[in-house]
């Protein structure tokens, strides 16, 4: 069943930074939320999470950097138990093993605190944390920008593979159309607090209609090489 969030809006210091928007997300769909910095895409992501959570949908969030997701004074095991408690689910070692295997972090020491894990592993732990309750929607905010490219690409591939077998929809927030184009089925282009384009990825890439989408398309890769 398609999830709909309407009336998404936000103001900061009396100024509207996100105008009335709505999002429809089908089960297992992958949506890219793209735009320049300051276009309101992260704000829309946050509004989406809050609205869906209030409506009783399962929704999880992976912030840009693990520093924004983990408490440096608490062990990984503590984070895990806490997330399980927040979902009111009993401890389930099988689910943990499954997710850790899928994201290749089974070797990490859960008794350690975040900073003794590598950043790539921290980020994948945060993703695993988000997937505990098999959410309807997983919102990822610039998942690659805090990581080295090799680690980032590996993480995205592992996540792709894992999500392929589930109904969890992915909302990928990024300024990088090149990244989004490789990972999502549908693109929503944002500009100055508004969704200005919402179409299948191939269609946006082939014939962008808005100025923002045209600019993103024109600058989506550094180099195009013949096959």
């Amino acid at each position, binding site marked *: 069943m398609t999830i709909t969030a309407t009336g998404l809006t936000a103001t900061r210091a009396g100024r509207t930074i996100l105008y009335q928007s709505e999002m429809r997300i089908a089960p297992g769909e992958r949506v890219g939320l793209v735009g320049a910095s300051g276009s309101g895409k992260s704000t829309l992501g946050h509004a989406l999470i809050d609205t869906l959570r209030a409506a009783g949908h399962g929704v999880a969030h992976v912030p840009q950097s693990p520093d924004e997701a983990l408490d440096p004074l608490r062990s990984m095991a503590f984070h895990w138990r806490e997330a399980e408690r927040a979902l009111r689910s009993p401890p389930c070692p099988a689910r943990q093993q499954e997710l850790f295997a899928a994201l290749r972090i089974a070797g990490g020491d859960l008794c350690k605190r975040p900073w003794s894990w590598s950043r790539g592993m921290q980020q994948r732990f945060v993703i695993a944390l988000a997937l505990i309750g098999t959410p309807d929607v997983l919102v990822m905010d610039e998942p690659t920008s805090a990581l080295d490219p090799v680690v980032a690409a590996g993480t995205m591939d592992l996540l792709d593979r894992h999500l392929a077998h589930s109904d969890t929809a992915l909302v990928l927030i990024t300024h*990088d159309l090149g990244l989004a184009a490789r990972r999502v089925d549908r693109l929503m282009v944002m500009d100055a607090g508004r969704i200005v384009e919402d179409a299948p990825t191939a269609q946006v890439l082939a014939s962008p209609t808005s100025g923002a989408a045209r600019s993103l398309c024109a600058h*989506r*890769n550094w180099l195009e*090489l013949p*096959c």
Partner: protein
Amino acid sequence: MLSVENVTVRRGRAQVLNDVSLTLAPGKTLAVVGESGAGKSTLIAAILDLVRVAAGQITWAGAPVRRCSPALVMQEPRRAFNPHLSLRRSVMEPLEAQGHVIDTSHLTTLCAGLEIALDLLDRRPTEVSIGQAQRVGILRALIAAPPLVLFDEPLSALDAVTQKHTARLIADLQREAGFAALIVTHDLGYAAAYADDIAVLRAGQVQERTPAARFVTAPQTDYGRTLRDAAFALGALERVA
């Protein structure tokens, strides 16, 4: 010509740079790519004489690099400026301190090349966008017409569109001014698109140095291939039919 010969830098017992040798000819661009912790930033610090070099030597045209007054463009544009000063003061102060006379027409030309409105310079770093701040950072680096400019992740704080725009401005200015550019970056796409040569640094050692055009089609090492494949997987590089 910048010449880095067998340079080793230690921090405690660890070797951050291990027998690194690189050259960069005047007017050319060398990109140094690698993961965090590979020693990229240490290389810049070593060239600027900010860390002690345990072995080897670094020269520009046979003399210590310091003598050619190299410039540096930093990663975090806003943090690179004193937040209490206008951008104009931040740009001018080092020059005035060195007794340079600033040619107004040179400033105007540079600002035009970097698409900086002159009144933007009267604002403070927090009152401009990150992209604008970084262009002023480049202005500050280029204003004394240095023969060598070091770029430490110059684009990583910017969004994808601004990155490509700024990269183009840098390249155009380089063609006019003829400075040698050493760009440290983790973005292989940027390196492939704008550098003449790509040097891959891993765990303090140079893995390979390859012309950029050849690197994207045929990296010389397995690790180079891993980096290139990641750039494709993240959409920085694209194959088209």
